């Protein structure tokens, strides 16, 4: 198999693009996709401070690597979830990555903010671990960005992540979730920073290949709580569709973004308030994060 651009032996076939690339041309293809995502959605400028949420996995570290090389002003944020050895190892990967490149890394522990690590939160709430984990991440990413006067948070969500989320929303016809699914969410309140996903044009196989070829030391082992997660089941279904029909995930996601998403945007605006406890944005009186922290503290103490 030959590289589509230079004719040298290929290292990766991208069936959805009907193409294969050698390592240098694949890396350039990858960076071009990130550049296009940032340009098309005006995600951030070179003057802005960008908080990059990193987990130690391939996607977020690949994203940070590209943004650093592109000359953006980035700071990493690692949220320590307290998930046993998995968190110890993933934190070490992020610290090693940041130190090697001389870029700043902030570390915030969920245990310090909620009152307990993710495994205990799961026991207390009796809800799937990804539920309390996701809530804590969204809240803390926004709050840390505000505290450091950064107007935008970038996450490593890729095409597969976005397609799986869309699939889950459609399966349950969560029409309130559909308009919120976007590569770039604007700030709708002075205390909400922008959220962007510069890897949304790239599959997770492509981000894994980029991380490998760039010799990024990422955590290959899966989060122990991911096993059995609904999003994994959805990814497996979509991967079977992709195997049978290359480009299926791309068409599903991009068709939604280009043609279907506007139909779900509601005219009426949601009223946003500030939480009476922490001051962060909520649609109620007390935000979901403070309620979670209350619940955890009651049960743990």
């Amino acid at each position: 198999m030959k590289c589509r651009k230079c004719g040298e032996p290929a290292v990766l076939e991208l069936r959805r693009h009907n193409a294969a690339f050698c390592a240098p041309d694949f890396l350039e293809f990858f960076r071009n996709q990130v550049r296009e995502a940032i340009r098309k959605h005006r995600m951030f400028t070179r003057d802005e401070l960008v908080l990059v949420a990193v987990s130690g996995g391939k996607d977020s570290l690949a994203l940070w690597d590209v943004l650093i090389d592109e000359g953006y002003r980035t700071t990493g944020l690692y949220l320590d979830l307290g998930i046993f050895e998995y968190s110890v190892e993933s934190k070490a990967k992020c610290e090693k990555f940041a130190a090697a490149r001389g870029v700043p890394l902030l570390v915030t522990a969920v245990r310090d903010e909620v009152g307990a690590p993710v495994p205990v939160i799961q026991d207390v709430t009796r809800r799937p671990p990804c539920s309390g984990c996701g809530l804590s991440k969204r809240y803390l990413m926004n709050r840390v960005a505000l505290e450091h006067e950064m107007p935008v948070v970038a996450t490593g969500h890729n095409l597969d992540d976005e397609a799986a989320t869309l699939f889950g929303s459609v399966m349950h016809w969560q029409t309130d979730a559909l308009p919120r699914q976007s590569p770039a969410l604007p700030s709708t309140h002075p205390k909400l920073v922008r959220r962007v996903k510069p890897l949304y044009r790239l599959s997770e196989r492509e981000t894994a290949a980029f991380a490998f070829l760039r010799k990024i030391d990422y955590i290959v082992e899966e989060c122990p709580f991911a096993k059995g997660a609904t999003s994994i089941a959805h990814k497996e279904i979509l991967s079977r569709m992709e195997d049978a029909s290359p480009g299926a995930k791309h068409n599903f996601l991009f068709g939604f973004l280009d043609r279907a998403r506007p139909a779900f945007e509601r005219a009426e605006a949601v009223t946003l308030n500030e939480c009476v406890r922490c001051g962060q944005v909520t649609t109620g009186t007390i935000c979901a994060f403070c309620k979670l922290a209350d619940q955890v503290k009651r049960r743990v103490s």
Partner: protein
Amino acid sequence: MRVILRNPRREVDVAGNRRVKDILRELDIMPETVLVICGDDLITADQVVREGDTIELRPVMSGGRAGPA
């Protein structure tokens, strides 16, 4: 030849001197769900691996929801 699998990490021996895609089919692994690593290189599904080679099939799927991926 030897194949290294992940999550959990394990090793299996399969017949060599055939294409990567044939090995993936035998192991019931979809090509789009793994990187195929031979030494320090990625290799494509049409490449032939020899009897003494070792390849790693590294899964690319990550899970969970709503956070830094």
